[in-house]
């Protein structure tokens, strides 16, 4: 009797253990790429308009504002208008904005490509919203939150991270915020060093599949 009960218990226990292992794997996080180890290789990701986009498609770009965002994160949602504003202001100056969703679409249905399309349409995104469903680009950047911004700049035909961190320091009250990303891009356009190259971003954790 005991053996049988034990057996079924072990089976269930094993299931529990497996789920624990699985969920621990969920919380795997790569190291955030520092500004020193800062070369980003080109990538190709599908945009919400079904077209694939690469950095190399932008022949005249001096740099990019890369924002990692997603569909569900309430804190990221606060920034849609600011993303549009940044893109409007800086794409004409050779620094377009690309948004990337690196959330685990297998685990989290809200983050599906169809929901990305809906979000882009509803919120009238004026920038590409790219689906990183394999999470490779997110891992390459070492991003761990949404929203998180990088400013990358072309140096000797390589893309170098010049800024990594928050968009600004106030999600709900943009008028009170210090615009970190805008400041960094302005400095780079003036051929200056970025005075605050790293800030801490806050928001929703990105869980990477292993």
């Amino acid at each position: 009797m005991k053996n049988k009960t034990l057996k079924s218990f072990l089976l269930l226990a094993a299931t529990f253990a497996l789920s624990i292992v699985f969920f621990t794997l969920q919380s795997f996080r790569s190291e955030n790429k520092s500004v020193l180890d800062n070369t980003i290789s080109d990538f190709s990701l599908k945009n919400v308009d079904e077209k694939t986009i690469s950095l190399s498609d932008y022949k005249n770009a001096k740099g990019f504002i890369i924002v990692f965002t997603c569909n569900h994160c309430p804190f990221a949602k606060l920034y849609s208008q600011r993303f549009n504003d940044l893109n409007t202001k800086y794409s004409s100056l050779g620094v377009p904005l690309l948004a990337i969703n690196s959330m685990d679409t297998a685990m989290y249905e809200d983050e599906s490509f169809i929901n990305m399309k809906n979000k882009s349409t509803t919120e009238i995104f004026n920038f590409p919203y790219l689906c990183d469903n394999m999470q490779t680009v997110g891992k390459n950047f070492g991003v761990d939150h949404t929203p998180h911004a990088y400013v990358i700049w072309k140096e000797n035909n390589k893309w170098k991270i010049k800024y990594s961190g928050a968009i600004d320091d106030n999600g709900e009250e943009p008028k009170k915020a210090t615009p970190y990303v805008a400041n960094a891009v302005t400095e780079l356009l003036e051929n200056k060093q970025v005075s605050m190259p790293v800030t801490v971003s806050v928001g929703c954790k990105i869980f990477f599949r292993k």
Partner: protein
Amino acid sequence: MQKTIFFLSLVFGSILCKAQYNNLWIPDTLSGTNFNLNLVDTFAQLRPGNQTITAGVNNKFWGPTLIFNQGDTVHMNVQNNLNDSTTVHWHGMHLPAVMDGGPHQIIPPGTIWQPYWKVTNNAATYWYHPHLHNMTMEHLTKGLGGFIIVRDPIESTLALPRTYGVDDFPIVLTSRGYDAMNQFTITNNINISEYGDYMLTNGTPNAQVSLPKQYVRLRILNAEIERGYNLGFSDNRTFYIITNDGGLLNAPVAVTRVKLMVGERIEILVDLSTNNVGDTLNLKAFNSALPFGFPGAEPQQSGLNGSLLNNHDFTVLHINIAATTATPVTTMPATLASNTYWTAANATVNRTITVTPGSGIGLAEFAFDNTPFSLNTINKTVNINTIEEWTIVNSNIFSHAFHIHDVQFKIVARNGNASGVGNYESGWKDDVYLPKGESVSFVTKFEDYSDSIHPFMYHCHFSNHEDGGMMGQFVVVAGNTTGIEEATQTPKDFSVYPNPANNKLYISFDDPNMQAYYIKINNAVGRTIYMLPQPQLRNGIDISNFSSGIYYLQLTDEKTKSTITKTFIKE
């Protein structure tokens, strides 16, 4: 010079007098028998400047107060919309282990968990909170949790204040530390203090509330990570404890101070009729000059185990006395209930659990009986309907709060002496202060629910200690009734219909005596949509919200605990 000092003192005095209080947030109530709880990632404005990333239940921080009536069967519809797995434990509730929401009941992101149970608890204040092993501190810190108020016929006939938000208030005490970006500092990191620096009362910083000039009932919960509260009023007035964790005391107990440890609840009556409208009063933590071992009595203000609130007296709620309501409670009942408690003499099984050091790695500072928690180890097996006496011995270096799931207990001795038990803790309890160098003995009966698979937990309610492995698990077994015959039976088959299905999915068992112990429904990519413990299947399973596609229904049979999977199509 004197003029300047006078002027400065006037300025500072007026700043002190007009301290920036915020109105206490009172959680909404949900009542009935069906409860929708939506766990969400969110943020809250807790400090000037950037918002703090939080999590909440139908809200920004903390959740709605659930009102249960004793005798009702309550159905919970818990939807995890966090992008992280978690669990929801119904603290203090007597229910089947598979509904309990302990570390085994993991709800993945996007999944709906539907436990249900018959409310048999006495009228008192309970709560719900996350309980995912290794993650409890982090999820609790973010703000997941809420009150449960149980009403019953005995309490209802008493002339007690019970108008929620008018003369009956839920007060949840906790504190948080913040980093430069206004984010909570408490994480599962041994190097960051487990103590917060700033009070959050009902999630409100510097909370104030207007209370009417009459008897007022406060239902106070310590939902801290680790801090204890030595509560009292700023004018040292007497107040009356009317409940412990699991029910009314036999009579109100008059005190001027009471220690409330993590996880514990008390309901108090305070007489404000002698005050004038416009008077102010503070509910305070008198946490200075307490002996080492009381959590929060440490001297350090920063660094490891440090906090600005440590070893300080501080206000937890600023009270403004307002006009008497139309129907005030003006007297206090002399007696409340006539509880029949088990005594040590009733116990047929005695167990001793000893606090020991943990491995010392990470959060693992403490353990029970040198056995750190393991999800796959059952530490105790209890026969159903047994009355047991448990003695928890703490000859270790710090104090703790011992909590047990499933049952309410009666404290029968402290340090082996019945006379060591305070009147203020003489009622039904599920959580008890275990001071450094002391022992606590309690008696309880394990009734109604047996399950040889799913365990209940006992643990230190300091979530850093719990996450660090100061936890054990016990199963309640039904004696000889589950045995060879049942375990050796081959599981019977079942079918799902209609297939394809549209709104409802029904299950037909080949053997009419077969019951489902657990059902999980997964979609084609393996994402769990539904977790249904011991589902009631007569009315089918509602799948109307599913998007069309292929789904897998995994049914674990009650008797054999074997799992069979069926495929169905949602049109």
